[in-house]
């Protein structure tokens, strides 16, 4: 098991390096290949009507005039060993993993991402709990009551949930419950440590909106999985042995049906931790998603690179956790 985990961790590092190379190439190399000069790149990070000297200074400061491999090497070195930056009045050390300094705000990227993380984590984890409980429960009941009004109704709702985009359901929920009937007014992120009640109150609408989409998907998947599992021979055998129906459903049926759900859940949660862009934008929550949008709008390459790496990290780690869980359940995976 330990070997398995070590092997996967090494693969994780390798994967992250590949992701960083691809991202770096997309944002640093491709513009050069398209004919942009380092001077033109630097012009983006200087204000209106810049002097030539100002652009040249920025070009040198951001190392845009260096070869691409040297810039990438600098990025990797910062990631592993940290980097020293001169803020004018003092030199500050950016400890690893130092994703560099923002071209626009001139602040280290890593602390900015870290400060955005609680928002995204609160949103993603809260919504995940809701959609997992809601989706799986509805899916199981629908499967067990196949063809009933509950089944048809819940699957109809699930279809709507999958079909309706978050920016639609989010806006509707805001219009109804925040603006028109202000049950949840002023949706603003309040840290959990500062005021747990306000934290929860302000996240109810984003949670429900996000969970509605995923719960619908999970309900349909669970239902399909349960229908398939419950028609297996071993379920009939379990019933024939006289086991209680609850035991048959939960221990034998649901357990088997949940295996693919766990895989998808890991992927979904990992992806959301990297930034629930549309939900955060709809509800004006300044998490990693909004951070990403801002980075792209500003063409802030270190920020884009940082947030891409972080998102990739979450997905890889989520996959790793799922794989470890599989390995625990199924010894064949370890080999």
């Amino acid at each position, binding site marked *: 098991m330990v070997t398995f985990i070590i092997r996967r961790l090494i693969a994780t590092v390798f994967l992250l390096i590949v992701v960083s190379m691809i991202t770096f190439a997309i944002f640093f190399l491709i513009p050069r290949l398209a004919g942009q000069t380092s001077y033109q790149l630097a012009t983006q990070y200087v204000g209106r009507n810049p002097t030539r000297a100002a652009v040249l200074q920025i070009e040198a400061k951001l190392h845009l005039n260096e070869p691409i491999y040297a810039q990438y090497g600098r990025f990797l070195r910062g990631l592993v060993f940290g980097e020293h930056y001169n803020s004018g009045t003092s030199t500050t050390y950016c400890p690893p993993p130092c994703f560099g300094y923002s071209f626009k705000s001139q602040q280290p990227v890593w602390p900015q991402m870290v400060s955005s993380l609680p928002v995204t984590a609160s949103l993603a984890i809260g919504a995940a709990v809701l959609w997992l409980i809601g989706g799986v429960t509805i899916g199981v009941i629908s499967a067990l009551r196949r063809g009933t009004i509950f089944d048809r109704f819940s699957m109809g709702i699930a279809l709507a949930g999958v079909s309706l985009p978050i920016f639609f359901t989010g806006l509707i929920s805001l219009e109804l419950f925040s603006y028109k009937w*202000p049950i949840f007014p002023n949706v603003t992120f309040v840290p959990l440590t500062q005021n747990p009640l306000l934290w929860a109150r302000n996240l109810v609408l984003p949670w429900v909106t996000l969970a509605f989409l995923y719960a619908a998907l999970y309900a349909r998947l669970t239902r399909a999985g349960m229908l398939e599992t419950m028609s297996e021979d071993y379920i009939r055998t379990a019933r024939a042995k006289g086991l209680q129906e609850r035991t048959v459903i939960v221990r034998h049926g649901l357990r088997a049906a949940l295996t693919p759900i766990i895989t998808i859940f890991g992927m979904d949660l990992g992806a959301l931790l990297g930034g629930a862009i549309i939900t955060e934008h709809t509800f004006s929550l300044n998490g990693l998603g909004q951070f990403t949008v801002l980075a792209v709008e500003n063409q802030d390459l270190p920020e884009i690179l940082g947030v891409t790496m972080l998102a990739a990290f979450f997905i890889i780690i989520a996959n790793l956790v799922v794989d470890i869980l599989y390995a625990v359940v199924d010894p064949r995976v370890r080999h």
Partner: protein
Amino acid sequence: MKRRKIMGLAAFGAVASLALAACGGGSTTGGGGSGSSPAAGPTGFNAAVTGVVNPSSKKSTGTLSFGLSSTPDSTDPANTYYAFMWNLTRLYTMPLMTYKSCPGQCGLAVVPDLATAPGVVSDNGLTWTYHIKPNVKYEDGTTVTSADVKYAVERTFDRTLFPLGPSYFTLLLGGNAAKYPGPYKDKAKTGLTAVDTPNSTTIVFHLAKPFADFNFVTAIPQTAPVPQKHDTGANYQLHPWSTGPYKFQSYQLNKQLTMVPNTFWNASTDPNAKQLVSKVTVTMNMNANDIDNRLLAGDLSVDAAGTGVQAAARAKILSSPSLKAQSDNPISGFLWFAYLNTKVAPLNNVNCRRAIEYAANKVNLQTAYGGPVAGGQIASTVAPPNVLGQKHFDLYEATTKPQGDPAKAKQALTACGQPNGFTTGIGYRSDRPKEVAAATALQQALSQVGIKTTLHGFPAGTYYANFCGVPKYVHQHGLGICFGGWAPDWPDGYGFFDFISAGNTIGAAGNTNIEELNDPIVNNLLDKYATTTDATVRNSYTSQIDHQIMVDAGILPEVYAKSLLYRGPNLTNVYVQPYYGMYNYAVLGLK
């Protein structure tokens, strides 16, 4: 069963708690207070364009809450160029000069702020002397000195740390200004030799050449004093040392700024600002539609960007008499236009450019930008009405035949030697839907007279750096027309025209004189503008330059931008400061 009951109670408790939090947890934008209550002021649609709505000196315990759909370029006064930030910085800074806090044309006047009087210029126009008020304090109670103003100006020379602010001091000052690296890299500690501080209340600027608009330059936030011992370089943006009515309490970069009253601020030394609320918040990076809805719901006080509400809220406001009465539709000072390149054939012939001026359907262009309310007023001049000295004229029938005059366009084409039309390219920002619509509208109008155009969309972020702002690229790709927008750094003719029409401003990249106009008449008028100290004479040059650019047909004016601003009923001292084209943030209060 027992377990179910416990779970049920827990669920009920959680819901009840959330409901209680919902009732009691909302942020307040109003509150009690002291001082005189709002007096009767103008009311109704556009009331704040010409008058002060809800004038009041009442102090409120509430929170003045700003929402912002973007983020500031910087909160450091040395490093900001956004109009709304120049407006917002007045809450925590006092530059040497500022704009008089009043509605209407009065608000275009530049008046002393930290200075006791406008700068005194020497006979040769090269030296500007300012005396600063002796009793202005920072937020820690220490007194502001002229050395702090000099230090603030010196900081702006470090373009590696402060690349986003204007570079006027580098361009205008003499002495070692051309090579001065800023205070952090000034190893010899010579300082900026073009600025003297003979005593603690006097500062003298030595210019490289006369520049009559220097009072406007010192109204830029870059002259707000910075105490050297509290300067943290690139990190100063996290807590600029306040001389204004409010000071930073906390700032989470690009997320949330909270300001509280600066207890050392004195209203008598800063008559153009007010300190009327107990807290100011700026929530950044919000959804623009969410901002509008919160404004209408009373959860937010002001949209900090000041560019008007979005389409959904606009429809709501304009269809409701009560909401419309709470809104204003000012001209923002911004011009939407198209550059007509004077070097790209066949537009290097003025008659071909004039054909475009005549053929353009201004109504369709206005519709593309959002119509008469959200888009703007059809423009016939380059300078908008809120530029000092602007006069109305209409060389190409923009207002008399706003749907275009194909007959005159064809006459111009014949004079150009292209009676059957010609082909050229149109550059525009493809991620700006209004500009896309405008480019399409212009393409359709020009096709009516035989001018065929190809559309070239570019990303806004690199538009000036890589495409329309690069003359070599423009020539190689035959971009005869490029869309643009412009607002001046200060509201006179020089401030408006210099960067978009002076021959010596044409640059290799990031160029803003995209039409590449190098007309000796325009250049000469701008030179005279820069050296004439008499304001009346200077402002008379505005319409002369404007007229000459239109004779040259270097620019196709489309609309003087307008925006629909919403003011909550709870706000006091609300009026549009014409220089910013948005509400004056420095004086706002709450009922």
